[in-house]
Structure formats: C-alpha cells, structure tokens
C-alpha cells in the first residue's frame, strides 16, 4: 500500500491543491507501457472470454410478440428500475417515479461539495471510523428497508398470527405450520396493518378527507376566473406523501444525528460513508424485493412462490 514515502506535513493540510504537492518521486512510478497496458489487456481478455461464454451458455429472453391488449401479471420494469417500482407500491407515484430519483441524483452529484476535505483520498476506506460507519450504514439500510417493506405489505400480521406467544401455539412444533393455532390480529389495531391502513381503517372526519383548498387559498375568482375546486384529502396525503417523505428524509437525518451524538461519525466523510452506505444497502434491498419478492398483483411473496408473469 502507500505506507511508503509520507509526504511533508505541509501538503497534508485540508484543501491542499495538487500544485503544492511534493515533487513526484520517479522511483514510485511505473511506465504505463508495459505495466498498465498489460493489466488492461488481461482485464479486457477476461471480460471478452466471460461474455462470449455467457452468450454461448445463456440465451437472451424473447417472449411472445408485444400485445397491448394483453397485460401480464405482474408487469415489471427492467431490473435496475425495479427499486423505483418497489417505491411506487408504498407512496404517491409522482414521488416514487420522478421526485425521489431526481432529488437523489442531485444529492449524489453534490457529495463532493459536502465532503470537501481531501485527506486519505485514493485509498480504500482509509479515514478513521470508515469501516464502522460503512457497517452501521449498510446494516441500518438493509434491515430498515426490509422492515418498512414488510410493514407496508402487512406481513407483520402474518408473523403475529403464526408466532403469537401465550397461545397454545408452541405446543405443536413447528408452530407456524399448525393452522389451528393461528391467532387473528386484534381489530382495535387494524390501523397498524400497513401505512395505507391509517387512511382506510380510521374513521376520518369528512372535513379532513375533502379540505377545500381551491376555494379558500387559491382565489382564482379574484382574477375573474371560475373558482378553483381543489380538495385536499388529508389522510391520503399523510399516507402517500407525508409519511414516505418523513421516512426518507427523517430516518437518514436521525441516523446521522445518532451517529454524531455517539461519536461514530465525526467528520463529513464519516457522515457521507454512513448515509451513502445506507443508501446502497437500501437500494439493493428495494431492487431485490422488486425483482425476486413481488409476484402477481405485486404482492410480497417468497422467491419460490413468485412465478414468471402470466398474461
């Protein structure tokens, strides 16, 4: 590694530009031809062989001719967009399809403008606390995203019904196989069945499901136009927008705050590693869930229960 030839202390300062770097040490350098060109050639060769072998062994799918009248169930986007399709199940379509990816890409592009120090660049996870932040970020992203998906797909109900302690359940082993031991979710807690249940299983007052925004705030009549009649459905707004936004913005901030208070993340680089690792894990879970765990009707199923689309 680069433990050799430490640079003078003056150039290790924050924000030091390459112009103040020490003179390049020739003995630390190799000639591109043959040392690098050779590595590149081998890499290209390995990839060529790999892809030729793949092309011989696995055929690209070609299904029946496209028929707009015949919608397969489930219909899925290409795999790298299944994370967005998974988000779509849980929130307002505009949020999942356009706003979240756009804001995310802008934030991703802005990473170097938040994390402006240039210490330990060019080495794998070399800053202090890099590994703990990576592990914590990835674990939280992985577990948290799965928990949210499970909750919003009402699968915690299944867990409760099969595993509820205090019943006769555990007399028979394995308990989740014994149908007679199934307990039902208490009706008073129906609003905890999923995020959507907050809207459907609570008796919202009619004033709240149709707040007349158009007539009170948007006074188009003052411009001589007909009066607007936009109605604000508060419960739907809470379920489709407020909670998802709160989770997507709030949980990362909470994670960063906790990491800051506990001393896990002290520098901006720490916070970047923590949050971006959390995002990588979360993105992976969303992609995997969308690809392997969503069956007909986009219901959450075990991969072995997910069959190819039927049309």
């Amino acid at each position, binding site marked *: 590694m680069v433990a050799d030839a430490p640079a003078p202390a003056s150039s290790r300062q924050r924000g030091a530009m*390459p112009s103040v770097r020490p003179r390049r040490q020739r003995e630390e350098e190799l000639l591109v031809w043959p040392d690098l060109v050779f590595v590149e050639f081998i890499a290209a060769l390995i990839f060529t062989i790999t892809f030729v072998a793949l092309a011989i062994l696995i055929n690209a*799918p070609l299904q029946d*001719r496209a028929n*707009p009248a015949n919608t397969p169930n489930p219909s899925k986007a290409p795999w790298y967009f299944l994370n967005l399709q998974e988000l779509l199940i849980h929130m307002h379509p505009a949020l999942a399809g*356009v706003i979240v990816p756009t804001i995310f890409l802008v934030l991703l592009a802005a990473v170097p403008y938040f*994390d402006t120090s240039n*210490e330990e660049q060019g080495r794998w996870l070399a800053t202090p606390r890099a590994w703990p932040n990576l592990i914590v970020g990835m674990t939280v992203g992985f577990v948290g995203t799965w928990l949210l998906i499970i909750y919003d797909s009402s699968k915690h109900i299944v867990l409760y019904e099969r595993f509820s302690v205090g019943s006769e359940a555990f007399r028979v082993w394995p308990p989740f196989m014994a149908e007679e031991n199934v307990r039902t979710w208490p009706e008073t807690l129906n609003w905890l069945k999923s995020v959507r249940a907050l809207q459907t299983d609570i008796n919202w007052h009619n004033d709240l499901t149709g707040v007349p925004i158009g007539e009170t705030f948007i006074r188009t009549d003052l411009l001589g136009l007909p009066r607007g009649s936009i109605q604000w459905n508060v419960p739907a707004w809470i379920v489709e927008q407020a909670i998802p936004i709160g989770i997507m913005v709030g949980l990362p901030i909470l994670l960063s705050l906790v990491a800051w208070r506990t001393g896990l993340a002290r520098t901006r680089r720490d916070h970047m590693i923590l949050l971006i690792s959390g995002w990588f894990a979360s993105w992976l879970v969303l992609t995997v869930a969308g690809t392997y765990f969503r069956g007909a009707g986009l219901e959450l199923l075990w991969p072995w229960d997910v069959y190819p689309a039927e049309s």
Partner: protein
Amino acid sequence: MATTERPQGQAIVDRAYEFLVNNRVWKSIFRIGYPNTPRNQMLAVATNVFLHLHPTRVHRTHVKITHTYCLGGLSFFLFLGLTVTGVLLMFYYVPSVERAYADMQALQTDVRFGMMLRNTHRWMAHGMVITVMLHMMRVFYTGAYKPPREFNWVVGVILLVLTLLLSFTGYLLPWDELAFWAITVGTNMIGSDPILGEVNQFVMIGGFEVGQNALIRFYTLHVIGLPLAAAIFMSVHFWRIRRDGGLARPL
C-alpha cells in the same frame, strides 16, 4: 518490468524483428520500434492516439488490481463491445412495429451467430449497468471524488444516468411482451409526475401509449443520440482524470 535488454542469442528472431520494424511502412504507422526501452515505452503511449488517454507513467499503487478492479476501464470496454455488437445488430433490425419482432426471430434462427450476437449485446448491456455502479462505489469508498476531482464525480453521475437510459431505450427494441410492458411500466412512472409528467411521457413515447412512435424514438436515441452524448461525457470524464492529476492518491 521495463527492460533495456533485448533477448540474446536468437539471431533469427532478431532478424525477423529488424525486418518487421526497420522499414518505412512500420515506421509510418508507429514511428518507433517495439517499445523495449523506457524512452520508447513512453513514446509508445504518448504518440498513440488510443494509448495517450493514459499518462506515460503512473504511481505504482495504481497498477494494483485491488485499487480499482479496473471497473471504470471495464465499463468503457463494455461500451466499446456494445458499440461493435450494436452496429452488427443494426444490419438485421428494422425499427417498425410490423417488422421488429419478426426481425428478432429471424436474427435468432436464420442469421449465423445471430443468437450469440444478440446474447453478447444483452449481457454486456446488463454488465455495463453493473460495472458502472460498482465503479461508482469504488470511487466513493476510495474517496476519489474529493477535491480537485469534484466535477468529475458529477460527470460520472451523468454517465450513470446515460448508461441507465441507454439500457432502458434498448429494452423496447425486441418488441416482445417483456419489452413492451417494461417500457409501459417505466414510462408510466415518468407520467405520474403531476406537473410535467404527462407532457414528458407524451414527448418520450410520442403518443399516449407505447407504439410505433415510441419504437422509433427509443431506437434513434439508443443507436445514435445517447451513445453520442455518452461519448462526449466520457471524453470529458477521461480528460479530467488526466487534468486532475491522474487517479486519486493520498496527498
């Protein structure tokens, strides 16, 4: 390692080498002989239009495979492979709703190595999405986006988006059920934006549902529009690596 000595005792090889290299044709192409001295090795890189993307010397840590896993280079390599296989595929494919699917079937059954050509293109396309993402993770975890390389990271994010769009536009072209519904689901997502969504979706697929207009738009973007854009941003990306002092390393 670089060596200044030529293998001894192989007169016939030496004579063949002299015959091959010491003539006007070879020197008109390569200017120098086989790069077997440090000077010639640097000249070989500096005077070759393809190799001069590189500096003539690199820090020795950058040649270690585990430093980069060659991910950026492999993404570029896949882009080149996709260009070659894509050009060949264009010989057999007509982007019309009537013909597209039949062309795919003909490609797979009637064209010699047609199935393999298509397979290579498809797996390379998936591979490129993966290598580009892994490359981004590599750059992130090695802290290689830090000053002075901030802007190149931004260019990289643009290239990531272009890679996804290239793959997405290519997805429609086989005109089978998988293609049609994947693009329908994907473009519906764009159309769900309340402000400009419907307009964007209409412009993107040239109508209210995926049909001939969408096919020709996706085809044109896939074979010329997006590859050109990607080539331009790749040029900037590679140029900036050199301008910003090569690969990142500790100060």
